[in-house]
């Protein structure tokens, strides 16, 4: 794919890295908010190529990881009911609840289905009028518009057997929570490009000003990430702190007006609990009063579930950028993708999964700054 190749070009990457090296004079800690960016960084070895002064801290932007344990347990309970078709994105199926996961429920006879869009779940509801179809509506601002659209359509079609189990979270309140934590080390942010493509950048200037941090809207390909880092370091070295859009091919200042209208019509801002982090005020959405009838939590009466995280799991600290996954004592021993303690080890965007998949060497994780010989970068064959 030519378009993607352009964002993987080793020559351009070297030029950006040279520029970052030439700019940096002292240590800086940048947080990439999105788990998709974390995986791209680790998968392409970007952190290994950066100068030692630039540290990347992995943020809480993995939607699967931050979905609270009590909501996972609600999902497991609903999915176990014989009259229910429970629909979810694939990467939720291995996330551990208190005593099992959705795969286990499926293996025990629950009708759990992987779908690629909430509209697929809506279609299932239309074709199965005698079953209740529930869609597990998790995620950040990126997935909210399509989920809102599904509920909107369900009402328009008069479908009474469709509902959402909602656990939507919003990025700006999470940035606020990270910056106000006493242990915060973050000096600049690579803001998640997909989130901004929906929401625009209007929520960010106040955050940049209040906490005096650069916020650079960044994409997901290797060159996108290097460009985001270059701009953030440039601002930090000059003592600046403003919002910059380094992902203009996808992000406009005003966001996507149609998507925003759909979110506004169906959802309302609510306090949310983040797995591993705890409650953050106004950090999520729930269905608004007009659409409350489509709320699976109430339809199935699964309120009041209380849970406890495994004591050995330090996913919360990983999600807040306080430790690297490999600093957790359970990493790779008591906690693996096969037997995960926390969602960060199973999610396709989880930081622990990224380190386990891409950095687990027999002699420990690859050190920062390690290189391979230049000739190995040349295509062969």
């Amino acid at each position, binding site marked *: *794919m030519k378009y993607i190749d352009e964002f993987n070009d080793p020559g351009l990457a070297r030029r950006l890295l040279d520029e970052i090296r030439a700019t940096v004079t002292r240590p800086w800690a940048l947080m990439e908010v999105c788990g*998709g960016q974390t995986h791209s960084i680790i998968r392409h070895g970007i952190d290994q190529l950066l100068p030692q002064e630039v540290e990347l801290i992995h943020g809480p932007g993995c939607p699967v990881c931050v979905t609270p344990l009590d909501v996972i347990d609600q999902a497991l309970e609903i999915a176990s009911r014989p009259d229910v078709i429970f629909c979810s994105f694939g990467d939720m199926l291995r996330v551990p609840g208190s005593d099992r996961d959705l795969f286990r429920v499926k293996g025990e006879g629950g009708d759990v289905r992987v779908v690629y869009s909430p509209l697929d779940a809506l279609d299932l509801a239309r074709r199965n009028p005698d079953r209740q179809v529930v869609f597990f509506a998790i995620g950040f601002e990126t997935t909210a518009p399509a989920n809102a659209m599904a509920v909107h359509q369900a009402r328009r079609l008069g479908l009474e057997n469709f509902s959402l189990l909602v656990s939507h979270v919003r990025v700006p309140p999470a940035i606020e929570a990270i910056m106000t934590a006493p242990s915060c080390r973050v000096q600049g942010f690579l803001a998640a490009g997909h989130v901004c493509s929906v929401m625009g950048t209007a929520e960010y200037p106040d955050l940049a000003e209040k906490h005096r941090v650069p916020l650079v809207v960044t994409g997901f390909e290797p060159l996108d990430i290097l460009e985001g880092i270059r701009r953030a370091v440039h601002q930090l070295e000059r003592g600046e702190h403003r919002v910059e859009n380094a992902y203009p091919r996808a992000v406009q200042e005003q966001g996507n007006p149609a998507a925003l209208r759909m979110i506004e019509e169906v959802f309302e801002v609510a306090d949310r609990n983040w797995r591993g982090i705890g409650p953050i005020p106004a950090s999520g959405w729930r269905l608004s009063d007009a659409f409350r009838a489509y709320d699976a939590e109430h339809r199935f009466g699964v309120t009041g579930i209380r849970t406890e995280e495994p004591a050995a799991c330090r996913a919360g600290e990983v999600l807040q950028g306080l430790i690297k996954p490999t600093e957790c004592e359970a990493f790779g021993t008591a906690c693996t993708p096969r037997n995960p303690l926390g969602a960060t080890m199973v999610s396709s965007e989880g930081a622990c999964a990224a380190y386990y*998949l891409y950095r687990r060497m027999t002699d420990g994780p690859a050190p920062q700054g390690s290189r391979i010989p230049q000739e190995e970068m040349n295509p062969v*064959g």
Partner: protein
Amino acid sequence: MGHGGGGALSAELMEQVFTPAYGNPTLAALTDSAVLDLGGARVAFSTDSYVVRPLFFPGGSLGDLAVNGTVNDLAMSGARPAYLSTAFVLEEGVDLAVVERVARAVGAAAERAGVTIATGDTKVVESGHGDGVYISTAGVGLVPDGVDIRPQRARPGDAVLVSGPIGLHGVAVMSVREGLEFGVEIASDTAPLADLVATMLEVTKDIHVLRDPTRGGLGASLNEIARASGTGVRLRERAIPVPDEVVNACGFLGLDPLYVANEGRLVAFVPPEHAEAVLAVMRAHPQGSGAALIGECVADHPGMVVVATGLGGTRVMDLPLGEQLPRIC
């Protein structure tokens, strides 16, 4: 379901359930086909079951897979496949025209691969207890003298070759199974590889390892070879041929092409002194025209596969746990 995905869970099921139950030195080799000594002849023997949905997909069908899969498993030990058996499990109520179409595909694929369907079986299960049509095939073939191909023979220095673009079969099946359309038709690569292998063996009988990276993809196959031989594998990401349409589809779904299934590709570990000549004959063969040198076997990091990324970093390429799952966003 993860236990059938060709990843770590599949290996676990084998190691924990089947190997202890049947344990014997031949099975313990855990190769795609067993090489048996029968009255002085070296016979490769293999069996496999095919449960793909849908039964027909761009570029192939269940019938093609059932023949090519077993033919290729035999070929991966260097054998010339000769005879196959087929066992059909039909679900009550399946349209007879569908069964006929599958059977014709089996016949055509056998003819293309140069094998004879020598025996067979048919069973019918009650409605709701099957998925239309399942096929199991078994096959035998003769291994030429002097040929000893198995994962344990990988050695540091071996060149790692792949016979063509990867990921096409998995994406082709997903594109119809999941109702996804990617704007271009992606056809499965399903094909018999025995003739390609015979051509490679004409260059040298000293090919160390052959593997067809089916379920679990290139990633699973290379990990199995690294573990079986106790050597490391080092790949160059930019050298691995991944078609644009596979890159696009996998990007959309959040899947890694290195773990997507193939049905008409092989990976070969060849002593370095023969690598260039083997690569040349592969490229001259219709089944290997897209062949590439993608890395080498190393003494470092024994049992592990490490990828040099296009940008100059490195990452581990681990055995996948089970099936890959599409991501949320």
